[in-house]
């Protein structure tokens, strides 16, 4: 049986791990390769590195950072942030990413998903969807450009379309919950999980293991969290032990 995956997320800017609420007030949280190795040793099942650099120089640094992380890491690495073309995706995969997550660029040019999936395989094409509850009416809309732009596009409909275009996995972030530590948006997870056959990674809002368990019961196949691990509140292994005790299938072998 497939195990529930625990995925720590490293937000990286100019070669350093940073953490802040909704990308505001970023604090330095360490060296990416050291952090990555430490998370693997704690039992992380996979890592996501999100490049939050705002400049072309920062982006070039991200490829180098991927190379450094890959030399240390024996678990899968997904890289997102600023993936705007097949060439960007190829450079990250060549540097050692196993999957690339496409967000704003996929919304603005959905054929990018198809091109990446066709060339590199659907298993490397992750669509990252930032979803916010609509200000009026039911459901969620897609937000892009790090939350600056509310697109009006139905998030669940976009999930379906992205999979039809070739995405092999969905990284679904609740924009309302991200960084708030108030728990995942469970209704959003359930709606997305029912809409698509591909694996679903829940993101945004985790504060303790209970939240991760709720996300899995709501339909997530994997859970992504940043703050609770960065701040040392919990180790990955401690979270996995709680989830296993709650009856979830977890990988409990020691890390490297």
């Amino acid at each position: 049986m497939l195990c529930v995956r625990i995925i720590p997320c490293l937000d990286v800017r100019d070669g350093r791990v940073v953490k802040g609420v909704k990308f505001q007030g970023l604090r330095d949280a360490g060296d990416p390769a050291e952090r990555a190795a430490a998370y693997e040793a704690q039992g992380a099942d996979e890592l996501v590195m999100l490049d939050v650099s705002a400049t072309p120089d920062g982006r070039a640094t991200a490829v180098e950072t991927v190379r450094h992380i890959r030399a240390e890491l024996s678990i899968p690495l997904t890289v997102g942030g600023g993936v705007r073309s097949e060439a960007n995706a190829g450079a990250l995969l060549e540097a050692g990413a196993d999957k690339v997550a496409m967000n704003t660029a996929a919304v603005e040019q959905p054929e990018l998903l198809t091109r990446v999936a066709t060339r590199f395989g659907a298993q490397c094409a992750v669509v990252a969807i930032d979803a916010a509850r609509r200000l009026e009416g039911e459901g969620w809309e897609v937000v892009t450009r790090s939350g600056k732009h509310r697109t009006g596009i139905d998030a669940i409909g976009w999930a379906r379309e992205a999979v039809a275009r070739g995405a092999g996995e969905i990284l679904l972030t609740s924009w309302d919950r991200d960084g708030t530590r108030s728990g995942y948006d469970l209704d959003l997870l359930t709606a997305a999980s029912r809409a698509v056959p591909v694996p679903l990674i829940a993101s945004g809002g985790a504060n303790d293991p209970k939240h991760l368990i709720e996300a899995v019961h709501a339909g997530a196949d994997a859970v992504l969290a940043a703050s609770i691990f960065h701040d040392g509140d919990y180790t990955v292994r401690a979270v996995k032990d709680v989830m296993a005790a709650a009856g979830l299938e977890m990988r409990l072998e020691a890390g490297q």
Partner: protein
Amino acid sequence: MSGVRVVRTGTANLASVVAGLRRVDAEPVLCADPDLLAKADRVVLPGVGALAAAMETLRGGLGDALAARIRAGRPTLAICLGMQLLLEGSDESPGVAGLGVVAGHAHKFTGVGLRVPHLGWNRVEPGADCRLLRPGHAYFAHSFYLAEAPVGWAAARTTHGGAYVSAFERGPVLACQFHPELSGAWGLDLLRRWLEA
């Protein structure tokens, strides 16, 4: 440690497999020369991407060199799509012949509520006759699977929907549906055993 040639199929993401081999002290070198592959001590056939595109690059002498190594029982490791390339064919690319050096055909995962791709960590249960494969969790990323163990090979099984063949081995020839290079300490141990087989 002698050199290991990693087949460059042109479609595969090779960084992770190269990094994994380096972490177990091998010296991987990328290779697309059939003569060098035929002579190499050890060969790794990685596989990420679409089957038809990968077969296209194996069509010439590369595929023949690989098939000859496997028939002769020379140390060869096939990973993920690399494993499926050894078979006769796959639902992924109807009408495209695989190398056909191992009997079998890959089918698409189907089933109500079944997550496809099969992506993540799942349990590998080796048969009693396996020498390299040991029980543990491995990382998988695939949509097509081999249902029946090929005759003459020791096989491991994994359950996704139903039980299927997640790896098979014979002497120093090992084919894995999962990615040992992405399967943590368990995967690195498997790479070490293969390097010594």
